[in-house]
C-alpha cells in the first residue's frame, strides 16, 4: 500500500485510544460508589488523552500518508478489515475528542446527580465511538462507529436533558438516521463499483463514472449535511443543544458536528472529485446562506443556549465555505475553523452549564449585570465572545480569515457575502454579552436573594485548556496548521488532477443523468 506508512510506535496506539474508554465503561458496570465512578471516569479519560498525545508528538508532518496504521483481517469473505490510521486532518480531531472528554467529566461533577453510573458509561462509549469514526479506514468499521455514536448520544439527551428532552432526542436520532441510511446505500454501491472492497483508501483511488459520482455525492451529502449541520437541515441542532446536559452540548458542538465536514474531506473529496467540482457552487451557496441565516436567527433568540446553538450553524457555514472553496487557504482555514469551533463553542457551552448550575434559567432576560456579580466569570466570557467574533489574537480570527481569503480567491461574491457574517456576528454576540453582563444587576440575583458565586477551582481547571488553546492558535496557528499542510495539498492535487479538466465536460456527462 503506497498510501500507508506503518506505525511509528511499537504499540497499537490508536487501538489503545479507542478501547481504553470502552474498557473503562465496562469497569464502571461493577461500581456502586458515585465518587469512585466519577474519579475512575476522570482517570480513564485523562489516561486516554495521555495515550493519544504521542500521535501529535511522533507525527511525521512531512507526509500526507496515513500514520500509526493498524491493519488486521476481520471478515475476509467480504474483505472487511480492522483498518485504522490517522492523517494530518484526523489526528487533530482525535486530540480534540480526547481533550474534550476530560472536560465533559469535570463539568458534570456536580451537575449530574441522577443515574451517575449510566451517564459516565455513556460519556466513555461516545468518546470511543467518536474516536473510532475519525480513525477508521474501512467503511464497515466506519459505519459501525458512526451509528454506535448515536446511541449514547441519544441517551445523553433523552435521559439527562432538559424538560423537552424526549422530543429533542428523537428528533436528533431520526434526522441523523435518515441521512445515515442514504449513506449506507452509497457505501454498498461503492463496494461493488470499487471492486468489492471497503478499504477507504483504495476506494479513493478509483475513478468512478461521473454519473455515479453525482448520485453517490448526494447520498453521502445527505448524511454529512445533517451532521454539519448545513442549512436547511439544521433544525435538530438547536433542540438537541438546548435540551442536552452540558456535557452533551459540549460533545455535540465540539466533536459530533465536526463529523459532517470531516466526511466531506475523507470521502466526498477523494472519491467523487468531479461531483465535488460540480457541486462546488451549490455548496458555497448553502454555506453562505447558513452563515447569514444562522447569524440572523441569533439576533432573534431569547434563550442563551439556543443562541449559541444557532451561532454554530453560522460558524459551521464558514467551515463548509472554506472546504468547498477548493484551495489550500480555504480548506486549511475550514479545518482549523472546525477545531476552533470545537474549542470556542465547547467552552461557551461549558460556561453556560456553569452558570446554569447557579441560576437554573436559560432565558437571557433573566440575567443582567453579571459582570458585577461574577466578575471572573464575566472576564472569561468576554474572551470567548471575542474569539467567537474572530478578533485577531484569538484562534477564531485565523480560521475565519483563511476561510474568507479562500472563498474570495475562489469566487469573490461568496467571499463578500460571507464577510457580512463578521458584522452580524459582532452584533449578536455583543448584544448577548450586554444583556447578560452589563447594566445594573438584575434584582433576582445577588446577596439576600438567590446567591451566586464566582468560578471555583474545578471550573477554572475545566476551562483552562480551552482558553490556552484560543491564544496559542491565535498567535501561533502553525501548531496545528503544520499537521495539515501535506494532507490538504495532496487532497487538492487529487481533486484538480483527477477531476475532468473542463467544467463543460462534467456538465455534458451530467446531462445524461437528467
Amino acid at each position, binding site marked *: 500500500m503506497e498510501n500507508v506508512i506503518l506505525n511509528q510506535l511499537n504499540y497499537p496506539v490508536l487501538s489503545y485510544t479507542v478501547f481504553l474508554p470502552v474498557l473503562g465503561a465496562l469497569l464502571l458496570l461493577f461500581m456502586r460508589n458515585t465518587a469512585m465512578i466519577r474519579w475512575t471516569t476522570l482517570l480513564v479519560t485523562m489516561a486516554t488523552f495521555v495515550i493519544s498525545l504521542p500521535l501529535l508528538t511522533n507525527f511525521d508532518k512531512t507526509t500526507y500518508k496515513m500514520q500509526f496504521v493498524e491493519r488486521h483481517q476481520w471478515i475476509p469473505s467480504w474483505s472487511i478489515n480492522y483498518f485504522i490510521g490517522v492523517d494530518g486532518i484526523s489526528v487533530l480531531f482525535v486530540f480534540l475528542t480526547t481533550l474534550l472528554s476530560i472536560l465533559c467529566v469535570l463539568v458534570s461533577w456536580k451537575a449530574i446527580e441522577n443515574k451517575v453510573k449510566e451517564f459516565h458509561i455513556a460519556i466513555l462509549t461516545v468518546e470511543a465511538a467518536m474516536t473510532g469514526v475519525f480513525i477508521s479506514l474501512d467503511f464497515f468499521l466506519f459505519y459501525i462507529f458512526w451509528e454506535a455514536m448515536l446511541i449514547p448520544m441519544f441517551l445523553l439527551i433523552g435521559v439527562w436533558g432538559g424538560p423537552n428532552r424526549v422530543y429533542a432526542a428523537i*428528533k436528533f436520532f*431520526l*434526522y441523523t438516521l435518515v441521512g445515515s441510511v442514504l449513506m449506507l446505500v452509497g457505501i454498498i454501491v461503492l463496494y461493488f463499483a470499487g471492486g468489492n472492497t471497503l478499504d477507504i483508501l483504495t476506494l479513493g483511488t478509483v475513478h468512478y463514472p461521473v454519473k455515479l459520482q453525482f448520485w453517490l455525492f448526494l447520498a453521502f451529502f445527505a448524511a454529512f449535511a445533517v451532521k454539519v449541520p448545513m442549512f*436547511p437541515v439544521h*433544525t*435538530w441542532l438547536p433542540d438537541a443543544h438546548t435540551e442536552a446536559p452540558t456535557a452533551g452540548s459540549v460533545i455535540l458542538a465540539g466533536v459530533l458536528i465536526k463529523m459532517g465536514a470531516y466526511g466531506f474531506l475523507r470521502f466526498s473529496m477523494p472519491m467523487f472529485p468531479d461531483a465535488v467540482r460540480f457541486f462546488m457552487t451549490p455548496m458555497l451557496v448553502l454555506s453562505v446562506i447558513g452563515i447569514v*441565516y444562522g447569524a*440572523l*436567527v*441569533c*439576533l*432573534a*433568540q431569547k434563550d442563551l443556549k439556543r443562541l449559541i446553538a444557532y451561532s454554530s450553524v453560522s460558524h459551521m457555514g464558514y467551515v463548509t465555505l472554506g472546504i468547498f472553496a477548493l*484551495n*489550500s*487557504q480555504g480548506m*486549511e*482555514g475550514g479545518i482549523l475553523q472546525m477545531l476552533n469551533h470545537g474549542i470556542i463553542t465547547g467552552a461557551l457551552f461549558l460556561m453556560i452549564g456553569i452558570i446554569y448550575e447557579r441560576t437554573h434559567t436559560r432565558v437571557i432576560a433573566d440575567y443582567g*449585570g453579571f*459582570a*458585577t456579580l461574577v*466578575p471572573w466569570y464575566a*472576564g472569561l466570557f468576554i474572551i470567548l465572545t*471575542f474569539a467567537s467574533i474572530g*478578533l*485577531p*489574537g484569538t484562534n477564531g*480570527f*485565523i480560521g475565519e*480569515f*483563511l476561510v*474568507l*481569503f479562500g472563498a*474570495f*480567491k475562489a469566487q*469573490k*461574491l461568496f*467571499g*463578500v457575502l460571507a*464577510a*457580512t457574517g*463578521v*458584522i452580524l456576528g*459582532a*452584533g449578536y454576540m*455583543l*448584544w448577548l454579552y*450586554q444583556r447578560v*453582563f*452589563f*447594566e*445594573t*444587576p438584575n434584582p433576582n440575583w445577588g446577596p439576600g436573594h438567590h446567591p451566586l458565586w464566582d468560578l471555583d477551582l474545578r471550573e477554572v481547571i475545566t476551562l483552562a485548556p480551552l482558553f490556552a488553546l484560543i491564544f496559542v492558535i491565535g*498567535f*501561533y496557528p*502553525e501548531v496545528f*496548521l*503544520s499537521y495539515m*499542510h501535506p494532507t490538504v*495539498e495532496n487532497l487538492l492535487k487529487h481533486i484538480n488532477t483527477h477531476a475532468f479538466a473542463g467544467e463543460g465536460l462534467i456538465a455534458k456527462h451530467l446531462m445524461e443523468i437528467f
Partner: protein
Amino acid sequence: MLKYILIPLLPLIAFIINILFGRNFIKDKAHWIAVPAVACSFILALSAFMNVASGNVININVYNWIVSGTFTVTIGFLIDQLTAIMLIVVTSISTLIFIYSIGYMHGDKGYYRFFSYLSLFVFSMLILVMANNFLLLYFGWEAVGLCSYFLIGFWYEKKSAANAGKKAFIVNRFGDFGFGLGVILVFLTYGSLEYTQVFSDAGSIAGQTINIFGSDVDLITLICLLLFCGAVGKSAQMPLHVWLPDAMEGPTPVSALIHAATMVTAGVFLVARCNPLFSLSHTAMNTVAIVGGVTSIFAASIGLVQNDIKRVIAYSTVSQLGYMFLALGVGAYSAGIFHLYTHAYFKALLFLGSGSVIHALGNEQNMQKMGGLKKYMPVTYAVFVIATLSITGIPGLSGFFSKDEILWRAYSSGELGKVLWLLGTIVALMTAFYSWRLIFLTFHGKFRGTHEQEHHLHESPKVITVPLMFLAFGAIFAGYAGIPPLILEHGDKIGEFLGPVLGHPHGEGSHLEEIMVMMTSVLVAVGGWYGAYIMYVKKPDMPLEAVSKFTPLYNLLFNKYYVDEIYDKVFVKPTLKMSDKVVLGFFDVKIIEGIVNGVPNLVGAFSKKFREIQTGMLSNYGLVMALGALCIIGYVIFLK
C-alpha cells in the same frame, strides 16, 4: 534592534499583571505598574526616533504568523519616519494621560481595570503603527477597537455606556468589512502583505481591471477604496461617524487618548501609510478628499449648537479628522500627518481640560449649567485658552502651522482643491465659533449650576494640572516642527523628515496666493472668536433669539441631522424585525420545522386511519372477507 519590540511589549506586560492581580492584590496601586511601563516605552520610542533620524530604517521579522499554501504573513515590525512620529505621539500623550488618570480615576472601584485596559490599548496602538504588513496592522486595528469597546463601556452598569461601547464596535465592523476584503485583495494582487514589497510593486498593476460582479473595476482604485472603508470607520468619517460622539460615555482620559489623539487617527495613518497605492488612483484620492471635506463641515456645523461639553469637542474631533483626510486626498500626506501630530496635543488638552471641569463640577457635562469658572480654575482656564487659540489657528501656536499648510495645499492642488479650500475655510470659521462658545459658556459669565456645586468648586490637583501644562506646551510649540518655507526657509522640518515615506507634494501657486490663504485663515479665526464673543458675552440673549428665529435649522443641527434616527429606522429595526419575524418566525419555525414535524405527523395520521380497520370484531372481518370473495368471483366470471 530587538529592544524596540519592548516598546509595545511593556504595556502588554503591564496589562497582563494588572488584569490578573489587580482585583485582589494591586487594587489602587495599578498605576505603579502601568505608568512606568508606558514611560519606558516613551523613552525607547525616543531612542527609536533618534535612530531613524540618523538615517536608519528598522525592519524586523520576528516569526511566521500564518502559513497556508502560498499565503505567508509574519509578525514583523517596521520603524521608519512615519512610524517614528507616530511612536512619539502615542507614547508621549499616553504617558501624560496615564499620569492624569491617577488623579482623575482616583477612588473608582474599577481603578485597576482602567489601567489594564489603557495599557492594553497602548500595546495595540503601538502594534498598529509598528506593523510591517497589512495583517498585523489589522491585528492592531481590531485590538484598539476592542480596547475602545472596553473603555467606552467602562461604567458598564450605565445602559447608555454599554450601548455606546457596543455601537462603536459594530459600526467599526462595517468599516472593517471593507478593510478586511481590501487586505485579501492586496495579497491576491501582489502576492505579499508586507509593506516594502507591496509598495515597491505598487505601480506594476496600474491600469489593470478586475471583474467584480459582472463589471470591470480599476483594480488599484478598488483596493484603495476597500482599505479606505476601514479608515472611514475608525476615524469616524461620514457615514460611519455616528459612534464617536456616543463614545464620550467613556471616562474623559479615554476620550482624550483614544477618541481624540491616537486611535481615531489610525485611519489617517493607514491612508498615509498606503500613499504609494492611493497616489495611483485619482478616484480614490478624490474620494478621500471629498469624504474628509464633507465630514469636516458636517461635524463642525453640529458642534455649533451642542450643549454637552464633551460632545462639542467630539464633533470638533470628527471635523478635524475630516481636515486630515482632506489633506491626504489632495496629496499632501505630510500635511495630514503634521495636523495629526499637532491635533493630538491640543485636542487631548481640550479633553483633559474638560475632564478637569467635569471633575470639579461633580460630573456635570452640560455647559448651560456651567459659567464663570475662570476665577475658580485659573490653570484649567489658561490651558483651555491655549488649546483654543491653537485649534482655531492663531499664528504662533501649533494649530496655525498645520492648518495653514492643509489649506494652502488644498488651494494649490487644482480645481477640486479650490472648492475644498473654501470648505476648509468655512470649517475654520465654525471651529473658531464653537471653540470660543465653549470657553465663554464654561468659564465666563455667571455660574449657572447649583449652590452645592458652587460650594465645591476648586482647581484640580497637581497630578491633573501638571500633565495639562505639558500638553499646553505641546499645543504651542509642536507646530514649530513645520514652519512654512514662506516664513522660514527649510522650516518645514517635519515635511522633510517624512519625505522618504510620504513624498513631497507638488502644487502650483504664487507667494502672493499663499499669503492670501494664510491671511484668510487668520481672519476667519478672529471672525469666529468675534461672533462667539458678541453672542455669548456681549449680548447673551442673542442665542435664544437666533434659536427661535431659525428653529428648524437649529433642530436639524441639534439633532445631528437625525442620522442616528435614520440608521435606527432603516437598518437596525428592520434587521431585528426581519430576523425575528421572517427568518426565525416564518422560515425556521413555520417552513422548515413545519416540514420536519409535518412528515412524521402525516405518517402518523395515515397509520391511525389504517389502524381503525382492525376493529377486532369477527363480524366485520367476515363481512370484508365475503365482499372480497364476491369481488374475485365477479372478476373471474364477468371480465375473464
